[in-house]
């Protein structure tokens, strides 16, 4: 005869506790903390670069998550913004304890908005709470219009969805109605922003969202 020991606890219990501590701290200080999630090469770092250039009203800090290299953190540092690189060494997503360690080397006192650029991946980063205020999904036109339905967790949880590389719409087949329809069922009413890095189209709407979220955060 076997007996059963009831446990009933979250699998990620320990890391969720770290995430809660990060969230408390950022909440207390009124700093906005955004987790940017999208596939490899979808334009996440480009978005952050443009945001830094075009929104001097905010003081930013950036944590870059990549499997290897410090290239993305260097791109951010080149713009004079404090940045830390986390290398996950094969890990396909960031976890709260990694972010917590990275936070120690950022001058948080002088930050309005903290971005974490998660490891390029539409699946795993959506699973792990890193203490952020919100997840923002980034997907690009050449990846195709079926991404929301194929990666429902991310697209259903995102507080905003950025469709990047819309300058490529004339060249790449992309079923916009399918994308919008699926997104509306997964995440009714979520803001969908069309972004075009070469011309800067979409940046005004994005910066307006940041402004609104920061205001909400500061009550």
């Amino acid at each position, binding site marked *: *005869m*076997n*007996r*059963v*020991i*009831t*446990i*009933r*606890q*979250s*699998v*990620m*219990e*320990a*890391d969720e506790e770290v995430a809660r501590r990060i969230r408390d701290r950022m909440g207390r200080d009124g700093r906005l903390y955004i987790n940017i999630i999208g596939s490899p090469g979808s334009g996440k770092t480009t978005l952050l670069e443009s945001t830094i250039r075009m929104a001097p009203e905010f003081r930013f800090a950036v944590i870059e998550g990549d499997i290897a290299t410090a290239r993305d953190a260097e791109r951010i540092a080149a713009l004079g913004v404090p940045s830390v690189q986390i290398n996950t060494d094969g*890990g*396909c*997503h960031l*976890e709260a304890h990694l972010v917590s360690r990275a936070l120690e080397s950022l001058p948080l006192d002088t930050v309005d908005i903290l971005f974490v650029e998660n490891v390029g991946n539409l*699946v*795993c980063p*959506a*699973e*792990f709470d890193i203490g952020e205020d919100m997840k923002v999904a980034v997907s690009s036109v050449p990846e195709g219009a079926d991404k929301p*339905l194929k990666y*429902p*967790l991310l697209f*259903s949880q995102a507080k905003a969805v950025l469709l990047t590389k819309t300058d490529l719409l004339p060249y790449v087949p992309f079923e916009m109605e399918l994308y919008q329809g699926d997104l*509306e*069922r*997964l*995440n*009714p*009413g979520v803001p969908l922003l069309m972004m075009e890095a070469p011309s800067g189209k979409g940046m005004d709407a994005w910066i307006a969202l940041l402004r609104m979220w920061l205001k909400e955060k500061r009550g």
Partner: protein
Amino acid sequence: MHELSLVEAILESLIPMCSEYGIEGKVKKVHLRIGRMRQVIPDVMRFAYGVATEDTVLRGSVLELSLIPLRLSCPTCGAEWQGDDPIAFLCPKCGEKNVKTHSGMELEIESMEVEQSDESSDNDPAVRHGGR
């Protein structure tokens, strides 16, 4: 491939529990509740568990996964439905956008099944449980 991270987190909780309860090497089964939204592939998870437990006190135990459907309800019209094929968070009756999620997000260690031995039957740890 976050299944491996999940397995590592499970071992981080369970291994200390095994020594606390004195059940090292006696665990037969670990039961998880996984919501349909969690993108966990059961075979990948079981395989990762097998590999990760090999040199631990959980060696030889098997992972059992219950997949929990996505259940939703509408606060406006009272409709209740299962929203996972395809996944949608929109009331099918009245189109309400703010629907309530009842299940489908679980990622829980439910229980362990342990080989019963004579000495351990008295101070049965089944009454104890960690977390909530």
